[in-house]
């Protein structure tokens, strides 16, 4: 079996809390809010897969269903091949869940005592338990602080301990819900390096990480799933995300023409469906850079360059720019919002 997780037409609808008036006037009616709808996903083992979406997109609901904390309303979900509704115990044996909530530990116990408690609840005992605790403490770099009370930990140390707890059972799949939320940029980078470099690359765990941080997604993910309003807008390897954009290719053209002349000539070119913008920040004498964005599929940048040259603009270079995940995400979500409207 190659899939760490697989969902088939998964849906979740939460009951909407009713007001006193509704309880009186319509006691038997029930209103529901859709959190997930028709989510079908397949995420491979050994990858760091990302769930990317705005707040309220359904990322946490999806992770909670996969961790057996919430029951789906429709469809099916499998973790490591186990049905999360019918085989909850087996599914839980395959996973580690890194809770981003700082308060999920006992503050007046040390880090080691906290791990000892959760290790016992995960059926570890004796020498095996102690060895495993030592190993995960070393893995997350908390050796020097393991015997300090949790209440004295910094935010970064708390997050590391949460990751250590998720690793206690050496799970095949690790779920992380916004693990760098509320961390300063430096510590967030350390945690990201730990996840990508140590847990996935060295230790071979599969990891599913939810975030709304596009920079984080850019740095980390092998596979990206974009969720919005409970639906999957895209799910594919990070390297193939660009193919989702119809149009939207970016180029940067360096020209050597006086600014005034450029401003006069550009509108007269008829820009063939390209958006052309002078990037003032790099202006230097007669040298200018133009930011070119195609607005539709199949537009040819060479045609635009030919016209520019024909009009007397001296073109020095042209570079194709890869769209960032930020741009891809923004455009996909904007397109969906536009379609929905």
């Amino acid at each position, binding site marked *: 079996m190659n899939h760490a997780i697989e969902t088939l037409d998964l849906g979740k609808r*939460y009951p909407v809390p009713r007001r006193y008036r509704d309880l009186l006037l319509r006691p038997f009616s029930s209103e529901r809010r859709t959190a997930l709808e028709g989510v079908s996903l397949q995420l491979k083992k050994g990858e760091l897969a990302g769930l990317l979406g705005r707040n309220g997109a359904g990322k946490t609901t999806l992770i909670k269903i996969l961790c057996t904390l919430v029951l789906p309303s429709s469809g099916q979900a499998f973790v490591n091949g186990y049905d999360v509704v019918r085989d909850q115990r087996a599914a839980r044996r395959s996973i580690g869940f890194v*809770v981003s909530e700082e308060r999920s530990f006992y503050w007046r116990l040390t880090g080691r*005592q906290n791990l000892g408690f959760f290790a016992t609840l995960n059926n570890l005992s004796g020498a095996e338990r102690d060895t495993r605790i030592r190993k995960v403490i070393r893995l997350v770099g908390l050796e020097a602080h393991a015997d300090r009370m949790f209440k004295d930990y910094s935010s970064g140390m708390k997050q590391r301990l949460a990751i250590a707890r998720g690793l206690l059972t050496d799970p095949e799949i690790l779920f992380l819900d916004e693990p760098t939320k509320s961390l300063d940029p430096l510590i967030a980078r350390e945690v990201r390096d730990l996840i990508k470099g140590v847990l996935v690359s060295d230790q071979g765990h599969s990891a599913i990480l939810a975030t709304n941080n596009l920079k984080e997604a850019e740095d980390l993910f092998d596979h990206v799933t974009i969720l919005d309003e409970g639906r999957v807008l895209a799910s594919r390897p990070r390297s193939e995300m660009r193919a989702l954009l119809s149009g939207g290719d970016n180029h940067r053209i360096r020209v050597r023409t006086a600014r005034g002349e450029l401003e006069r000539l550009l509108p007269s070119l008829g820009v063939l469906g390209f958006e052309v913008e002078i990037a003032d920040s790099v202006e230097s004498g007669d040298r200018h850079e133009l930011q070119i964005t195609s607005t539709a599929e199949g537009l040819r940048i060479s045609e635009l360059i030919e016209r520019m040259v024909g009009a007397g603009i001296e073109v020095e270079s042209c570079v194709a720019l890869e769209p960032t995940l930020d741009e891809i995400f923004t455009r996909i979500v904007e397109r969906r919002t536009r379609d929905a409207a």
Partner: protein
Amino acid sequence: MRSSPASWSGELATRLRKPLAFLHKDFLSNASYKLAFIGQFFNIVFISLSYFFLARLFELSDSPHLERYGGDYFSFVLIGVACGSYLEIALRSFSQSIRDAQMLGTLEALLVTQTEIPTLILSASAYSFIVTSLRMFVFFLLGVLALGFQVEGANYFGALLMLGLTIVSFSSIGIISASFIMVFKRGDPFSWFFTNSSWLLGGVYFPISVLPDWLERVSYLLPITYSLEGMRLALLKGYSLGDLLPTALPLVVFALVMVPASLWIFQRAVVRAKADGTLTQY
């Protein structure tokens, strides 16, 4: 194939490992609040003295209602308050353990471990029962050594048996109470009803024979009435196990019906909370 004592003790150790982990964790947490930890035993002195002086007032009236229990009000009320404490802790501790975990933010982390929810709830309540037992031990010790609590000829084994039945019976009500908290988060009518009716009608502070006839009949619907009667007759009158049977039997029936029912209700409550997505909300 018969299992050897070694494998039997190994199995027991495995089963006890999780409750012991909770006890250890709760002890470490509570012991770190040193003043509160020690202070909880001091108020026992004040409670004992209050009942001791109250008892001296009743001694003068020589109430016939107390004859069945040896005539000493202090001994009577000491057992009543001890049993009442177990009732309260059984009714409150299960729902409190859920609510504490929701408020502390540890519930999600507990629920994704390889421990089933009933084990989590029962283990999380173990510390409260042990601390209550310790407090009651100090309570009785103080009564016996300093305040004249009468225990000559007591049937301790019978009293412990009644105590065990009491805890199991009360716990089933506590588990139903926890089911309410799991689904509705607050406002548990079950616990409210049982606590108030038990303290009023169960015979904690006074023998139920002082109640009007119709209320006395109502009091026999409450398990605490049988618990108190059995404990008092075992400790104050030295009743044998055979003599205690009519008092113990209603508790056994209550436990046999209510324990499985409460666990079933609790499982349903968990499924409902998971379906509503409110498992960790408070």
